[in-house]
């Protein structure tokens, strides 16, 4: 437990909490302030909107420990607020609530909007209120209510919030003295160096290979994508690599072959992935088959997330096509489906970018291997994108990216 001290609705308090407890749970569970509602619990719906040092914020993605020293204001503390009194009346008059679940967040966000921006047009109000979702009124009444109050108070002196001059997330250092001036001209340059010659740490691969990635297609539970690239190597050499799992696997950053392939093509493997804040490892097994006549291989596999309940099933077929004596095209049809927590987070544009990035890394490594060099040990090989099973790899990305 961690001790925190803060002010909630004008009352100074100290409490013990765990670092992972978010502010909405803290307020509801330990302070009994159940007016702060929890809807999506990942920063999308706005039901948990509160004020932190006068700025509206999402309580569900702000941890209580990070609010040490702040002044919190929840819906319970707006009873006597003149603007909120008007808003409550307008919400009643305009039928701006039905079940009431979104209402505390709506009211706090609306009050903030009026205070900051004065009178707005209806489209502007809709845009500005888009961070608060309502599932029953259809918004029309909410917008009318806000618009009505904006007109009512148009002639009154506005009181724009401007906190204590701190430019970061509230509260900043507890001591006012530590707050730097907002606009410091040419002061103490060495702390903020002027741009020098760029010390780029880009790790260039031995040779860039252009990878074409088709559109992401959703077919039932399966995500499908095709990918192709050309390596300047004779097909015999490329085919030798593509049919040898022990050669293919090191081309996939983060992938390790744990066993096999046996005579029947079965194997086991794992894939360590690090992308942004996401670090995970998929482990699983699969089957490798080859069709020498068609110069085609297929990898089917399934894997489980070692740190959670997610899992992925993948199926990749790839072909080598001779373009000339020294040039070979590799084409892959990739399909995968994800289940578990990771499947809830996906955005097609991001999946496309990730698959392309992984494909480029794989292609570079394959090219290097075909030319007799070791796979590049670029940072990509840690970050990773891939598994020996593109399935594993793409599945992994998918989870990371799914639209919320």
């Amino acid at each position: 437990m961690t001790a925190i001290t803060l002010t909630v609705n004008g009352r100074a308090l100290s409490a013990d909490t765990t670092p992972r407890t978010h502010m909405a749970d803290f307020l509801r569970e330990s302070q009994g302030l159940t007016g702060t509602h929890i809807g999506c619990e990942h920063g999308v719906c706005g039901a948990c909107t509160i004020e932190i040092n006068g700025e509206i914020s999402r309580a569900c993605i702000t941890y209580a420990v990070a609010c040490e020293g702040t002044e919190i204001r929840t819906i319970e503390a707006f009873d006597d607020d003149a603007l909120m009194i008007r808003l409550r009346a307008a919400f009643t008059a305009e039928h701006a609530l039905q079940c009431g679940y979104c209402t505390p967040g709506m009211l706090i966000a609306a009050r903030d909007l009026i205070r900051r921006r004065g009178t707005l047009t209806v489209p502007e109000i809709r845009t500005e209120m888009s961070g608060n979702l309502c599932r029953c009124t259809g918004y029309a009444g909410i917008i009318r209510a806000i618009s009505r109050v904006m007109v009512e108070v148009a002639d009154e002196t506005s009181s724009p919030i401007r906190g204590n001059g701190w430019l970061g997330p509230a509260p900043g250092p507890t001591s006012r003295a530590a707050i730097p001036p907002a606009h410091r001209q040419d002061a103490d340059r060495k702390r903020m160096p002027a741009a020098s010659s760029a010390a780029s740490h880009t790790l260039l691969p031995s040779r860039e290979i252009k990878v074409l990635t088709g559109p992401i297609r959703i077919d039932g539970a399966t995500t499908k994508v095709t990918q192709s690239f050309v390596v300047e190597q004779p097909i015999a050499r490329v085919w030798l690599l593509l049919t040898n799992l022990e050669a293919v696997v090191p081309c996939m950053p983060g992938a390790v072959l744990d066993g096999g392939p046996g005579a029947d093509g079965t194997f086991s493997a794992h894939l360590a992935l690090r992308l942004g804040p996401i670090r995970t490892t998929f482990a699983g097994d699969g089957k490798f088959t080859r069709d020498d006549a068609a110069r085609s291989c297929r990898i089917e596999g399934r894997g489980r997330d070692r740190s959670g309940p997610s899992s992925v099933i993948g199926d990749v077929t790839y072909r080598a096509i001779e373009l000339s004596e020294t040039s070979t095209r590799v084409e892959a049809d990739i399909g995968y489906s994800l289940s578990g927590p990771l499947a809830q987070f996906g955005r097609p544009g991001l999946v496309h970018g990730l698959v392309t990035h992984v494909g480029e890394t794989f292609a570079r490594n394959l090219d290097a291997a075909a030319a007799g060099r070791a796979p590049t040990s670029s940072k990509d090989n840690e970050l990773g994108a891939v598994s020996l099973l593109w399935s594993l790899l793409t599945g992994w990305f998918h989870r990371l990216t799914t639209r919320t």
Partner: protein
Amino acid sequence: MKPVAFDYIRPSSIAETIKILGENPDAKIIAGGQTLGPMLNLRLAQPTILVDITRIPDLVRVDDSDDALTLGACITHAAIEDGRVPDAGDNVLARVARGIAYRAVRSRGTIGGSLAHADPAADWLSLLTALRASVLLHGRGGERTVPLAAFVSGPMMTNLAADELVVGIRIPKLGRNGRVGYSKICRKVGDFAEAIGVAVYDPERKGLRLVAGAAGGAPILIDDLAAPPSGQSGARSAWFDDLRSRLQSTSLGTDVYELNTHTATLRRALDEVIPA
């Protein structure tokens, strides 16, 4: 929807932060937490230690000189939206800040956090790449300044070392007549962008710079085109056909929808700065 348990440290200086990062390979920096918070709650990210950098005064500094504006990494989108910091020209920072997610997110989300996360759909990444901005990094090996175009290596991938911290962003100022057009397509207001178009037209300095953002990976920069003609609809239309062909040769080229949305956002951005 509750995060896995983690420890929490709140250093008071950049040096202390770097030391903590060096000693804890599994530590994760948190500033406003508006991207990391959802990923923690969904258990997509499970770091063992969070390092809260929001109490470090050096990370909210502003240096405003004649040729560049330097913003500390922990400055919030809301502070930029409200004009509480100077702009780099054409009021572009405030304009773009206002379109980031929602006010309740902008009040805690930070410019440095957005760049360190390097989500392809993020507004700052595209805009600041077009403005030739550089990130300022501090690590155990010292300090370095890296142009954004070299900092970002792929979707959510950067060249930030494990013990390095983004401390600020240096944004060259526009010339007196410099203009910036900005357009994005989102399914819903505040949602992740599906396409971003940025057009920086600065006749006194570097001419025309275009960025196609939310393109899956690092922003796509096009900076070798002459300005599109005005007042001649045929010639202007041909110019945009060329631009579309140019995009077709990038990673966007295999998907007609991507090609169309990115061409449209670039056209809208260009129309703002070089009217038809």
